[in-house]
């Protein structure tokens, strides 16, 4: 513990050159925190509004279809896909696989490409076919 024993610590974030694997690693944490706080709050709001009757649900859909609400929902869906794909990558790495530098980097890039493509496809479908 740094407070009681001021031994030298690794200067981790400030010294390394950034790469896709580092980006995906910190994105996993950021998207996880976002889904935990904002995502679960939205899910709970949605369910309580559904249970609360027409007025409560109208207030929810009004907020959700407002530009700010839409941005939050689009960001949450991207966070969901990024955390899901990155989570699958982590489960594979938990078995000891995919630690070779090029493989590791390739799968890191794939999670980013995948989450952006899935988010774009989801919202293209929703905005086109689900008025």
């Amino acid at each position, binding site marked *: *513990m*740094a*407070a009681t024993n001021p031994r030298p610590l690794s200067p981790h974030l400030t010294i390394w050159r950034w790469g896709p694997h580092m980006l995906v690693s910190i994105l996993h*944490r950021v998207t*996880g*925190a976002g*889904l*935990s706080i904002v995502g*679960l*709050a939205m*899910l*709970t709001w949605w*369910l*309580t509004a*559904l*249970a*609360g*009757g*027409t007025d409560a*649900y109208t207030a929810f*859909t009004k907020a959700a279809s407002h530009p700010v609400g839409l941005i939050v929902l689009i960001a949450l*869906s991207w966070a*969901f896909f990024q955390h*899901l794909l990155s*989570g*699958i990558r982590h*489960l594979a790495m*938990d078995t000891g696989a995919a630690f070779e530098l090029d493989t590791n980097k390739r799968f890191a890039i794939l999670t980013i490409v995948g989450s952006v493509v899935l988010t774009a496809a*989801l919202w293209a*479908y*929703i905005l086109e076919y*689900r008025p």
Partner: protein
Amino acid sequence: MSRGESATPLGRVRGLGSAHEGGEHWLTERVTSIALLLLGTWLVASLLFLPSLDQRTIFEWLRAPSGAVPMALLIVTGFKHALDGMKVIVDDYVHQPGNNFAMNSLLLFLAIGGGALALFALARIALGGGA
């Protein structure tokens, strides 16, 4: 956990990490992540394939056991996974023991309180009267 009395090298070091525990927490996080892989995909697919996203349709979807049961599992597993993940973040960044205890307690209360609220709303939808 064995402490010194073990004859094997693994047995002698097991449980001697800085936290002396955490294997179960780590494994639970993985198991809930696999469950959420299924339940999260179910939620997105359901929202995509429902005939409409108006209140009546979503209400009827969650009234049926085929909607209510996966949603209940999603709430419980989602809040548990969020709590486990947020604890990792807190333990990484909040070193002072008192602050660490306070943050982890706050997270626990938020997760159990939020989960209970979401489950209660779902119960009103699934077991209550009309919309």
